[in-house]
């Protein structure tokens, strides 16, 4: 059962996969067309040996799902990665009620409060315009699946030339194929003479080390991520700017998910799980940090 198609969830090597149809298409893109995927649209119920299982939008990225499990009247909800902020590229998070909740708490501290996405996009446009006026390429790091497309969807058409790092081409094409409206963008390989990039915005995955700026003036570098809320992380990556744009719930968002679920028991995974668990306990809920799988601890590390 795969909640969404990010690489740390969409692992190869399973005999069969269960996923929502949008996630299934992204899975085939990532793992090959030959994998066996059973598609389960949002809201439909699958009976698995007496457990009624259904998927519901989690708002994280396109196709991302929460899993609702019901057995003899007891309901548990596993949120997977979840985002409560609006995102035009996917269905909004849908509150699901349950007796128990397994919640991802990557940003489970009250210092994480996201600004309005529209205000962040306005800042981004300002930064891009300022760089373009000085003939400097704007290099924006964003996760290849989800974040990059969310940014493309938010940019007004005609804002300027946009280029995509090769790693972003396939997921962007997949979003377009499903009818998501994205600002036009060209492949980086199609950039010809060096002047092409001077006023351009280049979207690249965070792992892209080399800045593809035109020879003389190095590109201005920025990163779109919830982690950019912290000044230290911005400075560590030697970024010109950090745009606070996250595909995860912030502190108020997490508390809203807990409240709307009506759950009496909450298990927290990732990030500040022990802290959020303690806070919820003080609010009278039965909450605890779920024991982490060995590899899971690494997800905690900020970029």
């Amino acid at each position, binding site marked *: 059962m795969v909640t969404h198609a990010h690489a740390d969830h969409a692992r190869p090597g399973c005999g069969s996969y269960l996923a929502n149809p949008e996630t299934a298409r992204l899975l085939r893109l990532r793992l090959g067309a030959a994998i066996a995927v059973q598609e389960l649209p949002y809201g439909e119920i699958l009976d698995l040996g007496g457990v009624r299982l259904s998927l519901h939008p989690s708002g994280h990225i396109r196709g991302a799902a929460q899993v609702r499990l019901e057995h003899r009247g007891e309901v548990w909800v596993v949120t997977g990665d979840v985002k409560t902020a609006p995102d035009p590229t996917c269905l909004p998070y849908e509150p699901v009620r349950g007796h128990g909740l397994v919640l991802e708490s990557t940003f489970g501290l009250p*210092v994480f409060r996201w600004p309005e996405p529209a205000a962040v996009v306005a800042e981004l446009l300002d930064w891009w315009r300022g760089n373009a006026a000085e003939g400097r390429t704007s290099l924006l790091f964003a996760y290849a699946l989800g974040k990059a497309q969310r940014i493309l969807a938010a940019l007004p058409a005609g804002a300027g030339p946009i280029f995509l790092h090769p790693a972003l081409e396939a997921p962007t094409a997949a979003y377009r194929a499903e009818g998501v409206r994205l600002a036009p963008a060209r492949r980086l390989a199609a950039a010809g003479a060096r002047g092409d990039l001077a006023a351009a915005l280049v979207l690249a995955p965070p792992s892209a080390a080399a800045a593809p700026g035109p020879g003389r003036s190095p590109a201005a570098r920025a990163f779109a991520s919830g982690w950019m809320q912290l000044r230290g992380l911005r400075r560590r990556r030697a970024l010109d700017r950090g745009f606070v744009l996250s595909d995860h719930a912030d502190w108020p968002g997490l508390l809203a998910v807990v409240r709307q679920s009506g759950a009496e028991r909450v298990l927290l995974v990732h990030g*500040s799980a022990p802290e959020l668990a303690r806070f919820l306990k003080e609010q009278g809920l039965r909450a605890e940090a779920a024991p982490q799988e060995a590899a899971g601890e690494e997800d905690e590390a900020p970029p």
Partner: protein
Amino acid sequence: MKRFARLVAALDRCRRTREQVAALADYFRDAPPEDAAWAACLLLGRRPRPAVPTARLRRFAAAAAGIPEWLFAACYERVGDLAETITLLLPEGRGLEGVPLHAWLEERLPALRGLEEEAQRGCVLEAWRGLDRTARLVWIKFVTGGFRVGVAQGKLVRALARVSGLEEARLASRLAGGLHPTAAAWRRLLQPAGAEDDDPGRPLPFCLAHPLDRPLEALGDPDRWRVEWKWDGVRAQIVRRGAEALLWSRGGEVLNASFPEIAAAAMRLPGGTVLDGELLAFRAGRPLGFERLQRRLGRRDPGPRLLAEIPAVWMGYDLLARDGTDLRDHPLDARRAGLEELLKTAGDPRLALSPLLAVAGWGELRRLRDEARRRGAEGLLLKRRDAPYAMGRRRGIWYKWKADPFRVDAVLTYARRGHGRRAGLFTDYTFSVWDGGELVPFARAYSGLDAAEIRAVDRFVRRNARERFGPVRAVRPELVCEIAFEDIRRSARHKSGVAVRFPRIVRLRPDKKAAEADTVAALRALLKEKETAPWNEPPSATS
């Protein structure tokens, strides 16, 4: 206040020198003098005194944010900066506050300092409500005494030169003695050239040594160079003018109060003299180590007991002005000859002459460098005999060639998350060495690893954490690192019995097992070697 906060934010955001200078020039072009003077002092490293204890500030902030104090602590641990944590936790302020920078620093914050907790709470909360986020961050850093946003003096000088039309050299020289945060001092700094004679009591910009970055042979004939010990003390100029003698540090502080006996000795020099040298704690012909000197530095008006316990000398090595004439353009040899003459005439043992080391060839120099540490010096200085006294750090005139540090292999035993740029990553490490079958902590080190190595160690800590003590993780003792340090001394406060100076990580030693790390006995051996080394060439005033 708002404008200064915006300048700080711009300096934080801009990585390029050109942009930083432009941001500075924008600010100083039309900042009122009383604010501009404070802004420049702050950016050059002046820290406001803490006004509210940080524990109180944390309580105020947790209450204002409506969260329990333990959660505030968890946030701080994650963010790695107190002012930023508070700024992120509080709702956006009104941004209406219009108190100017100098009024905060001269009146409001000093007044806040004297208040009881409840009264402080009222003032702090009101300020938080009135300030926007950018200004709040800077304001909290003032209140905690932790304001540390700085710019290199060179950048500030460039910006001020652009704004005022004055030459950079003149501005640098006017700034050399430090700047007072007053409108009058600001106007004096920027007044047109020639309208005044620059304050005669001020020091001259220091000439700084460049690290030796080439083979010795590339320096040409050894006979073109003068060689001295590189002292591990505090650089200080003696400016003897009129009725006073001032002892100036590189940071632009007057050190007379901490070293009254040196200041008194300097009165023996003729008026119009400027000398460059180094303050050292010194007894029986050898330096006593930097930590002793620090005790002297930290104490104003030392009593006779401290003066007797830790005697100081000033070790001279250059002459910058004589009889009021600037000699900085003269070759080193001529300046040195003048210096020797002046110190001989003064005839005071507390004004010593840094000895020249006779070096027949580069090979002999290498041997001397290996000896430096045992003689209480940090390494060697090479100065070109025909070179002028330059302003700042110029290549090819003075080279410093530091001795190799002490090195040991130690095991990582504890780690905690770093601050600032390293927030969130485990970057503060405690290293231990073996004492019998037990690992004993002996040094904490933060620096020396590159970004990729920091990530690797961070992953190691996350995977190998055995126990959690709040922010600290005890890790399985498996990772061996080579640790370098500059000095070692006895310490009753450390479990290992020794304290080391400026420990840092040289490299990871994945090839070594924990059992192969060094021992306390090995550290004691280093200490013994250092303490018993001969000093058979005591410096004297008449080399």
